Each structure stands twice: as C-alpha cells, then as structure tokens.
C-alpha cells in the first residue's frame, strides 16, 4: 500500500516536472512560438483574406459583335448584367480580340457571328462562341455560367414568342420545356472558394504546426543532449509513460486554444459555415489532436537535427491536402494513395470535420472517421512508446559508457 502511494507520488512529481519543463521549452524558443502560436494565429486570417471574396466576379471579357442587331445587343446587355463577367471592350475581329487577351486586358472573348439575328428570325439555331483563357479554371466557369444563363433565359422568351396564337399556357410549356428542372446546391450554394478550402486548411494547419513544433522541440533537446535527462533517471527507470503523457499534455494544453481559435472563432469572424455543435466538433477534435500529437512524437524520434524536420514536414502539407479528399474527390483518388492516406490523422480529421461542420452531419454519420482517428491514437501510442523506449535505451548505453 505504501509502495503504491510512493509510486503515485513520484509518478505525479515526475509528470509535473516533465510537463512544466516542456512548457518552459515552448515559451522560451522563438521558432517553437512561431509554429505553436504565431502561425495558428495568423495563417487562418491570411487564408481567409485571400479567399475572402469567395468567387470570381466580373471576369473581364472582350466582345466581337458582328451581328449588330437588336437581338445581339440584347444578349450582350443581359451578359453584362450578370455578376460573373464584365464587358471591357469591343473588337471588330478575332485578331483584335486575341491581342486584348494577349495583353491580359481580358480573359475571355464572346463572339456573335453576323448570322446570329438572321438565324433566329429564320428559325435556325443561332450560335454564340466563347473563348476562355485557361490559366485559371474559374475564368472558364464564370464565362460558361454567365453565357449559359443568358442563353437559357433568351431561349425561353424566344420559344414563347414563337408560339402560335390560340395555344394555352399549358400547351406552350409542354412544347417549350416538356420537363422542367431545377438544380439545388445544398451545401456551399455560392460555390465559394473560402467555404470549400478553409475548413480543410484549418485542420491541416493544426496538424502540421503541431507535428513541426514537436519535432523542433525534440531536435533542440537532442542537440543539447538533454533528451532523456528530462526524466530524473537517477531515481527510477520506468518513466516512459510519464515522458510521453507529460510532454503530450503540454502540447495539448496549447492546442486546445488553437482549436477554439481555428475551428470556433475563425469561422465566426469570416462567416464560414458552422453547422456542427461544439460537443460534436470536440468529439472529433480531441481524437484528432491526440492522434496528431502522437504521430508527431513518433516522427520526432526519426529526425536527428532540429532543422531537418522543417524540410520533411513543410512540403508534405500540399500532398496531404490532396489526400484528404477535398480538392480532389476522395473516390477519384487511386486505391494505393487512399491506403497511404490512412496513415495521417489529417485525412480522417478533415473528412469528419467537413461533414459535421459544413454538411451538418451528426456524430453517428462520421462513425468511420471517428473510429479511424481513435485507431490512429492507439497505433501511434505504441509507436511513440517504442520510439522513446529505443531512445532511452541508447541514452542509458551512452551514459554507462561515459
């Protein structure tokens, strides 16, 4: 009984020591502060500002109107009224229009041939051609959207005006549009870029800065030869769990605030969707943070110098964003890369968070991701303990040799 008491007391003392020591390290290292505090604080704002306007409005276009008819003018009037494009100039022929594109005065050309009005009057199909610079896919989308809308609208009116007298309204509809349809964009109705990308970037940011910070801290310790002196080795030798939980708790303490900021405050400030309730989001954030911390601690055991982890971890943010299935649909990712993606907490974290936060899914609907995250926690606990165990062994060996 007494031994157990001593054990607990000592355990608690060591744990406390490790925890505080790690906190001290974090707050006295400017590089660590950059990744643990500054980046999580400023990056979300920067991203939100970049994508703030959500979609491309008013893409500049140049127009070639060879029809010079009231109908072509009507078409262009409606086109310039759409929010997506802005007519910046008129050209007489294709060569001139292409020069404007070349000079980047415009990103698209709308070409109305001289047969346009003639065709419409003679009940022939009339054509409008659009040419889009493909440097950005959003220019194409904006052009296509604006022109499709205008043409559908005019088509409807033309069809109605062609109806023979004496037809009822119902008959008219039956021939002009026998089946009507509507498209409903349930989530992210404005097809906004901020809503699409920022939630995923937030989760990835949390993981990457956490892993980076952990590796930097471990690297510093190793360079100073401190790593396993953290534990008062002289007193006892079974402190692995103490080291792992003590350090882990220090990182988590910081990251709880980062979660509140990145997942709670940022969406509020920038009016991003927030359909999930706080308990639901925490239910995902906690296993995600745990998995990311343990993942980071495992990786930290593999990196020898503190600077090297920057090289390895920073670039991986871009592939990881793609592996999370947001920018490139998850089901379109080849099997091999999907399996590879299961190694990283961000894959499941992003998926679960998006479903809860953007789609309003309940916890039971993200069961797979939830379980996968806990599975990673379990797996990376073992790898972390193994990594630290190996480190401890080599440290003792060195100490005994010395």
């Amino acid at each position, binding site marked *: 009984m007494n031994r157990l008491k001593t054990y607990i007391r000592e355990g608690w003392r060591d744990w406390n020591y490790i925890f505080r020591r790690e906190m001290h390290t974090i707050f006295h290292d400017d590089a660590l502060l950059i990744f643990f505090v500054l980046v999580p604080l400023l990056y979300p704002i920067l*991203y939100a500002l970049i994508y703030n306007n959500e979609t491309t409005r008013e893409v500049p276009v140049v127009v070639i109107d060879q029809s010079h008819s009231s109908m072509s003018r009507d078409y262009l009037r409606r086109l310039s009224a759409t929010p997506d494009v802005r007519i910046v100039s008129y050209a007489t022929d294709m060569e001139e229009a292409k020069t404007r*594109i070349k000079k980047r005065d415009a990103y698209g050309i709308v070409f109305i041939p001289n047969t346009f009005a003639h065709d419409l009057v003679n009940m022939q199909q009339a054509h409008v051609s659009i040419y889009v610079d493909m440097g950005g896919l959003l220019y194409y989308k904006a052009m296509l959207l604006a022109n499709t809308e205008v043409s559908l609208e005019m088509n409807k009116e033309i069809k109605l005006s062609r109806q023979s007298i004496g037809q009822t309204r119902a008959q008219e509809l039956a021939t002009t549009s026998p*089946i009507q349809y509507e498209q409903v964009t349930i*989530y992210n109705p404005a097809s906004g870029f901020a809503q699409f990308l920022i939630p995923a970037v937030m989760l990835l940011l949390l993981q990457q800065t956490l892993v980076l910070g952990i590796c930097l801290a471990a690297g510093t310790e190793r360079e100073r030869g401190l790593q396993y002196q953290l534990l008062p080795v002289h007193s006892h030798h079974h402190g692995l769990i103490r080291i792992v939980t003590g350090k882990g708790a220090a990182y988590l303490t910081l990251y709880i605030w980062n979660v509140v900021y990145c997942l709670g405050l940022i969406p509020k400030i920038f009016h991003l969707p927030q359909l999930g309730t706080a308990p639901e989001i925490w239910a995902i954030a906690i296993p995600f943070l745990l998995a990311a911390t343990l993942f980071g601690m495992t990786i930290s055991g593999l990196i020898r110098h503190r600077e090297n982890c920057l090289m390895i971890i920073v670039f991986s943010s871009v592939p990881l964003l793609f592996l999370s299935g947001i920018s*490139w649909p998850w089901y379109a990712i080849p099997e091999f890369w999907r399996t590879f993606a299961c190694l990283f907490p961000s894959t499941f974290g992003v998926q679960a968070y998006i479903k809860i936060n953007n789609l309003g899914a309940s916890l039971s609907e993200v069961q797979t991701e939830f379980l996968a995250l806990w599975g990673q926690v379990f797996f990376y606990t073992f790898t972390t303990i193994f990594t630290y165990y190996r480190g401890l062994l080599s440290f003792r060996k060195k100490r005994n040799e010395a």
Partner: protein
Amino acid sequence: MVSAQGRNNDTGFWNIVRREFRRVIHDPVYGFCLVIAPIFCLVFFTTLMGKGLPTDLPAGVVDLDNTTTTRMVARNLDAFEQTKVVAHYANVTEARRAMQRGEIYAYFYIPKGTTEKVNRQESPTVSFYTNNTFLVAGSLLGKDMRMMAELASGAAGRTVLRAKGATESQMMAFLQPIVIETHPIGNPWINYNVYLSNILIPGILGIFLFMLTVYTIGLEIKWGTGRELMALAEDNIFKAVTAKLLLQTIFFLTVGFLIMVYLYAILHFPCYGGLWRMLIIMALYVLACEGMGLFMLIVLPTLRLGLSFASLWGVISFSICGMSYPVIAMDGWIQGLSLLFPLRHYYLLYVNTALDGYALSNAWPYVMAFVGFILLPVLFVGRLKNIIKNMEYIP
C-alpha cells in the same frame, strides 16, 4: 573545368565547392530535398490526378415515380463518364443523409407522377441536388445531371414536335434557339492534372529552393564556420556564396528540367511556346527562388528563423499565386503582395508561354521580376558578409 591548380584566384572557389561537396554527400537532407522529395511529388500529383478529370463520382437517385421511363433516366445518368449511380434511395431524407456521410456528392430526384405528367403534357419538374462543399465533385456531377435533364426534356419535346411533323434541325432550333459553343484556349479538355500539376510541382520545388538556400548558408552560421568560409573565399562574398550554392543549383536545375521534360515531353501537357522556353523559365525560377532564399537569411539571419520564413513563404505561394483562385478576385493589397512570390511570376509566365504560346517578350515584366529576385541579395551584400563572418549561433 577549371582545375585547382588554376589561377590563384580560382583556388578558393573550387576549394569551397569541394568542401561543400563533402557536406552534401554526408548530409541526408540534401538527398531528400534535391532528389527524393521533388521526384516523389512529381509522381504523386501526376498519378493522383492521372485521369485528368475524376470519373465515376458516386451519385444517388431518388426515383419516386419508378416507371420504365424514369428507370431509363437513372441508367442513362450512370452512363455519363463522370457519374456513377451507386444507390437508389427511398426518399430525399435518406439521400441527404448519404450525402452528409460523404457517400454521394449529388442526387437526382424524380417526384411521383412525373411520367404521367409528361404524357398529359403538364410539364413536371425534376430536381438535382449537389454538394459543392466538394467543389470539383459537386460541379462536375451538377453538369452531368443538368445535361441529363436537358436530354430528358429534349426527348420528351421531340416526341411532341415529331408528332407535329417537324424535321430534326427544326426541332433543335425550336428547343434551343441559341447555343453556346465553348473554346477553352490552351487546355481544351479542362484537364485538372494539367491545371494543377503544372504549378503544384514547381511550387514544391520552390519550397525546397528557399529552404535549402537558407540551410546551406545558415549552417555556416550555426556551426561557426563562417570565418573559415570567408577565408577560403579570400574575403570575397560573391565567391563564397556562388561556390556554396553551385552544387545545389546544378542539382535543382537538373531536377527542374527533368520535371519540365516529364510534363511536356512525356505526359504531353500542352506547351505551345516550345519546351525550350519553359526550360528558360524554369532556370530563371530556380535562380529567383535562391535569390529570395538568400534574402530570407539576410532578413532573419539564424538558421531556424530563416527556415521558418522560407517554409511559411513557400506554403503561402500556392494560394497567392492565383493558380486555383485568381489574383484579380483578391483584395488590392493581396494582389500587390502576390508579386513578392516567385511562384506568382512562374504561373504567369507558364500561362503566357505553355498555354497561350506567346513569346517571352509578351510577358517581359515577369521575366524582369525573376531577374529582380536574383539580384535582390546583391543589394544587401554587406550585411550578408557581416552575418556570415560575425553571427553567433544561439541554439
């Protein structure tokens, strides 16, 4: 090659190169940043998006009418290349749940009585629901479903018109008086692999260029060998820096050219301006990123802070270069900020040269920007020298 026994002036230079060579060989970071990681990314992105456009995206059908005609619609929808009907749901609520679980990105809804209404010429409405939180999947499925609805409507309209004795072209002219013809310039297949890999891969190369430049020079500071280096260079900072960076530059140029050859000659991504022009752009980009990297170290002259600067700048490049979200849609001050990122200029030059096939002279301001980045450290050469010689490393 100038031999070590050459003019006295050269001795220092080649000694530094030799010294650097030993470091590069013994430090695994170089192998990782120069070869392994860029090649990994090249393979990763081009295989991940290997199909160009995602195919067989999961979609659902809620067919409450359930007649031969409506079942045909579901089958036809499945025949579209981008759409795969993975499930039929009994009602809209179930379909929405499946969407929330992420099992489908869109569903097509046919209300009860649709076929009957068509037969009675009552013009029924069908709808389709897309999830644009997954922007690419949502908009591609939306496109397919809109086409399906148009086709179904057209088919029904044709039946009515044919009964009235109209010819095929008359029918088309009647159903769709104005048609839009699209001509995407440069990337006519709207291939996402072309659209993304072309910038993502050089972007990642840029991260490594920033970081490795900071690392190579920063290590001298960290290990306190700066004085030794300057002694070898006979106190000539230009000699010291160019000799230090020579090896990594050769490697980066080789990898950069390899990327260009792979993208344009092997994968045949559109390159209307000629491969050699893209090689020139890549070479300028490599040097510009190194110039920027040196500048980072001049601003924050410790290894870890310089590297932090490099990594943050490198990561922001992807968002601010305008590849996916156009810079003209950003706020004014961010538009200005974007000019400080080499990847922004690379992107503009790539569009100009590879996609549009214009001469480099058409985009000369961006070429000049690259030259500016390369010359940037020259402005602070005194400070750089001072840093290398006198900075103390504080771990």
